[in-house]
């Protein structure tokens, strides 16, 4: 069991690396070049000290010979100095460009993945949005992606650097004296096992840390979004306490992770520090017995850091690798998410839509919770249809099936006689103008919000549709008129104003089917009248499906459907339904202030 888990872990991490490799396509040659440069400059790092060593040997050791060399071979000194400076310049030049290559590749990859994920997110179905919280998605596209970037930009480079140094030094050590080399590297297996143990323990911690980060993000993001409610209930203290818990959790997860390394740190650090001790004892012994020269001893001692440095870097490398690992899994999960609602291939649909809508035996449930049961209805092109019903009776669910936000579990929805599943999604939705109950405007100018469906729309059109939606008047009164910036979610506007902008936005695409989900609930009657007038006189053919609570919005409809518990309870025109004296009649009566309707 445990073994299997380990195997899975190994498979998962090789999966992460494969995914990373796949995402480097197009950058691989440059990346390889960067890696080669890294090897080169590390090699140079080993050779540059030779110049200064030579200067010391020739001009700074042995009074006699140094003086003689200085007298006879001044040019050597100049050459050596020039070589020292020149080589350093060359090396730093390469270092700089190698670093920039790593930056460029990692940024290029980051850019690509980020944009791809953004597209993925935008094209997901509603089920996806129910599953993933905003804060969590944000974490994936920011913090998690940054860990992936860091892997490419830093971890790989550091590993290459360590290996290059270690290998070249090892070769040199062995070349000088195999036995001495062996003594110095004798501690490596210990390091290896310690590292392995650390890696195993660090893995779950990084996963936990990542989750805590996401929780923190989610908590903060919800609090920011709900700031009005928080204030309304004077719940600031409560929110602070709740956030503090997350903050505490995250903080202690970070501590825990860092402290874990500090458990291993003394062992590793002692190993690194044991190197000069070993050199002193073994090297000293060899020196005494003439197996090693002083020059060789100095060479060993001068290069010990090439073994010690990788050891000291291990903790960082492994921590960063595990961070990458847990982050990459989250990113990959998003990358692999497939929407269940996918577009049918384009089948040369005509560009216009007549607007006939038909529901055949449609049942729909959120999970196990059925909200629509065997709905049959037909809306002819150009008709105006009203849908009424109690809160939670399924009105919104019903209309959401038309643009295919959800697919019904049973039955079919047809638009212009064609099953919506066979429509190219873009075409279908492109013909549907919808103003939802929960009005969502973007932090952009009013202009930009109305022209959301077609950003190239001329100003005059924007104004025209604002006028149709009875929004022109209040927009004109604003200081910057159509250029006024609306806050996120349309904050700063009253409910009625938001609804009217959202209506203008829906009208502006000249849809074949216009769906209004309780869009005028917050506007006053006079304004509503104006809106109804415009809706009745649109300059393009349009089927209108209107969910409304007010009789004033429904009475002129060609058909009225009353939903009850997910089924159509009543159906007919205003007059017919009044005559029926059912739900509709009661509603009408209530709205008339309880007086009989004649």
């Amino acid at each position: 069991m445990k073994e299997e888990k380990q195997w899975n872990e190994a498979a998962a991490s090789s999966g992460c690396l494969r995914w990373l490799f796949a995402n480097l396509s197009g950058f691989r040659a440059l990346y390889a070049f960067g890696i080669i440069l890294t090897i080169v400059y590390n090699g140079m790092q080993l050779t540059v000290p030779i110049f200064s060593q030579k200067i010391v040997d020739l001009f700074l050791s042995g009074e006699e010979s140094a003086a003689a060399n200085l007298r006879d071979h001044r040019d050597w000194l100049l050459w050596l100095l020039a070589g020292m400076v020149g080589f350093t310049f060359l090396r730093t030049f390469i270092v700089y460009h190698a670093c920039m290559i790593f930056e460029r590749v990692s940024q290029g990859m980051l850019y690509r993945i980020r944009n791809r994920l953004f597209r993925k997110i935008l094209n997901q179905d509603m089920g996806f949005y129910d599953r993933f919280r905003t804060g969590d998605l944000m974490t994936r596209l920011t913090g998690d992606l940054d860990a992936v970037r860091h892997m490419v930009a830093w971890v790989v480079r550091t590993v290459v650097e360590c290996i290059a140094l270690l290998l070249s030094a090892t070769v040199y050590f062995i070349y000088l004296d195999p036995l001495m080399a062996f003594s110095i590297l004798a501690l490596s297996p210990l390091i290896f096992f310690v590292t392995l143990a650390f890696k195993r323990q660090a893995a779950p911690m990084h996963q936990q840390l990542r989750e805590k980060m996401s929780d923190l993000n989610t908590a903060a993001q919800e609090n920011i979004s709900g700031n009005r409610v928080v204030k309304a209930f004077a719940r600031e203290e409560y929110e602070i306490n709740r956030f503090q818990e997350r903050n505490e959790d995250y903080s202690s997860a970070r501590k825990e992770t860092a402290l874990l390394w500090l458990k291993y740190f003394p062992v590793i650090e002692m190993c690194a520090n044991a190197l000069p001790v070993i050199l002193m004892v073994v090297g000293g012994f060899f020196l005494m017995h003439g197996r090693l020269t002083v020059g060789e001893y100095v060479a060993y001692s001068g290069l010990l850091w090439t073994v010690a440095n990788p050891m000291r870097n291990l903790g960082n490398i492994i921590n960063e690798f595990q961070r990458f690992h847990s982050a990459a899994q989250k990113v990959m999960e998003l990358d692999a998410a497939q929407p269940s609602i996918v577009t049918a291939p384009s089948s040369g649909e005509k560009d216009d839509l007549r607007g006939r809508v038909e529901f055949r035996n449609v049942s729909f449930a959120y999970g196990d919770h059925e909200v629509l049961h065997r709905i049959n209805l037909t809306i002819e092109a150009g008709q105006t249809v009203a849908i009424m019903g109690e809160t939670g009776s399924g009105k919104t669910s019903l209309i959401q099936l038309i643009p295919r936000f959800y697919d019904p579990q049973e039955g079919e929805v047809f638009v212009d006689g064609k099953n919506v599943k066979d429509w190219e999604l873009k075409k279908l939705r492109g013909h549907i103008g919808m103003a939802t109950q929960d009005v969502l405007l973007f932090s952009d100018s009013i202009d930009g919000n109305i022209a959301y469906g077609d950003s190239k729309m001329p100003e005059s059109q924007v104004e025209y549709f604002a006028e149709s939606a009875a929004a022109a008047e209040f927009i004109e009164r604003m200081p910057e008129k159509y250029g006024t910036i609306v806050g996120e979610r349309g904050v700063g506007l009253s409910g009625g104003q938001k609804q009217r902008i959202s209506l203008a936005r829906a009208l502006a695409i000249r849809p074949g089917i216009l769906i209004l989900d309780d869009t005028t609930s917050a506007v006053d009657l006079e304004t509503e009248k104006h809106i109804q007038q415009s809706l009745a006189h649109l300059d393009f053919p349009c089927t209108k499906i209107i969910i409304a609570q007010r009789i004033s919005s429904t009475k002129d409809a060609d058909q009225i459907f009353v939903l009850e518990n997910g089924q159509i309870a009543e159906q007919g025109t205003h007059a017919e339904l009044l005559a029926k004296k059912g739900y509709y009649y009661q509603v009408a009566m209530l709205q008339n202030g309880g007086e009989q309707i004649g």
Partner: protein
Amino acid sequence: MARNTYGQDERLETPFEFRHLLRAGVYLKRYRFKMIVAFVLSAVAAATGLLSPVITQKALDEVIPAGDMKRLFVLAGMLLGVFVVSVTFSTIRSRIMTKVGQDIIFDIRSDLFRHLQELSFQYYDDRPHGKILIRVVNYVNSVSDMLSNGIINVILEVLNMIFIVIFMLATDLKLSLVVLAGVPILMAFMMFIKKHQRQAWQQVSNKSSNLNAYLQENIVGARVTQIFTREEENAKIFDGLSKECQETWLEATKYSNLIWPGIDNVSVCVRAALYMVALLWLGPESVSIGVVVAISSYAARFWQPIMNLGNLFNTFINNIAYLERIFETLDEPVLVKDKEGATKLPPVRGDVSFEDVSFSYEEGKEVLSHVSFHVKAGESVALVGPTGAGKSTIVNLLSRFYNVGGGKICIDGTDISGVTLHSLRSQMGIMMQDSFIFSGTIGENIRYGRLDATQEEIEAAAKTVCADAFIRKMEDGYQTEVKERGSLLSQGQKQLISFARTLLSDPRILILDEATSSIDVQTEQALQQGIDAMLKGRTSFIIAHRLSTIRNCDRIFYIDRGGITESGTHEELMAKKGDYYHLYTAQKEEVQ
């Protein structure tokens, strides 16, 4: 200030100053004792580390040539001992500083969050939420290491440098000056880099903030984007923002990556100059070889701390861009706050009076002008009138979400500007148009109104507002998890839940701002009994368009043109045949 969008960088006017670091000192102060301990530990570890070359030297110069294996072992033991001490000390130091570092970011984040709770709607309305979020989460994380280890390391490195300089000067003044001549050159180089680097990292923080803002809005607004088939276009905008992030990052790293090579080159030039001066200019006659060797080894040691400082400088510059943003948020003035010496508003009866109240959101555009009225405790008042006439403003002022521009508002005769916000708002129940539902269970959402409410009380509240039935119909009843965007619930259901939430809070003054707009008439009719029960004994202000909701109120204010144009009971206003009469008859005509 104009509203900020994703497409706009947030301007930061304050110049770069190390005062930001000084200010961060406030956060360090709490941990100064621990930091001093950590510092001492590091200093001791570093000092013991200095012993190792002495021991090695002794081995090479005396013990090995003498072939004394025993003494070699003794020396090796001493060396090991030195390392054990230094490793132990540095481990303890790291343990201390890890905790301190995390505690510091915990503190900063707490303060930031606490401050955000005090900021008014305006703050949240004026900028994309993603830009606020990135500060609380991402930016704070970035600065932790700089503030904890960074500062200690700087002090250590500086001390290290000073020691070396002293040793060097004691050895040979002239040659030391050659080594030190590199410092001004390096300074000039760093100054040049700093100027660009700082701007570049500010740009990075700006662009990532923009990206975050756009991302957050698109996640929240995905449905709208899909219905308008704007996916491609938005993806292109995102590409653009993403590109800007990439470019600014590369621009910034272009400077950051220059620092290390720069120091390296200056240091090698200094070494070359040293050799040239010592060997070619002064010559062996005036400087002994021993001195040159000593100085050149000091020079190498001298540049090591400088390199480390260069690195630290780099992270400081990067992170100060974040720190500035954090402090900027912390400095955001709290417009509506408890006055100094604010008293607690005692439990009120609910007698409300507006005395000559004026208010404007923007200068010169008065929304309310000299409004005065008096509402007796327990009275219910309906506010009607055209959209944008100022109905919401009146209730927002009463809840003190904004401070009045002129005049005063009194509850039970107490001016609300002199009482604590918490004591005021906790006695009011405010239901807004936007019925925000938190993620969590339905039960938890209702409990938000009164945290210590029992399950029975929650259910009773839900029953009163006709929400019990639909909640019970759900799979897990009150334990049903509402998803973040509340997609499981219809808008009307959300309003019912927030109704229950408000009812549970048992307020003395009740404000319903379009609270029932999405509830169907049938439910509202049933709800009416609940509302009646709720209104009983409570002062209430109701904003609604549906006249069936309004009719039952004790009094009706018709709000238009910045003030109350008509007031009275339904019957009185009908008899008056004014604005209200027109509104009412218009609605009736519609139904007929």
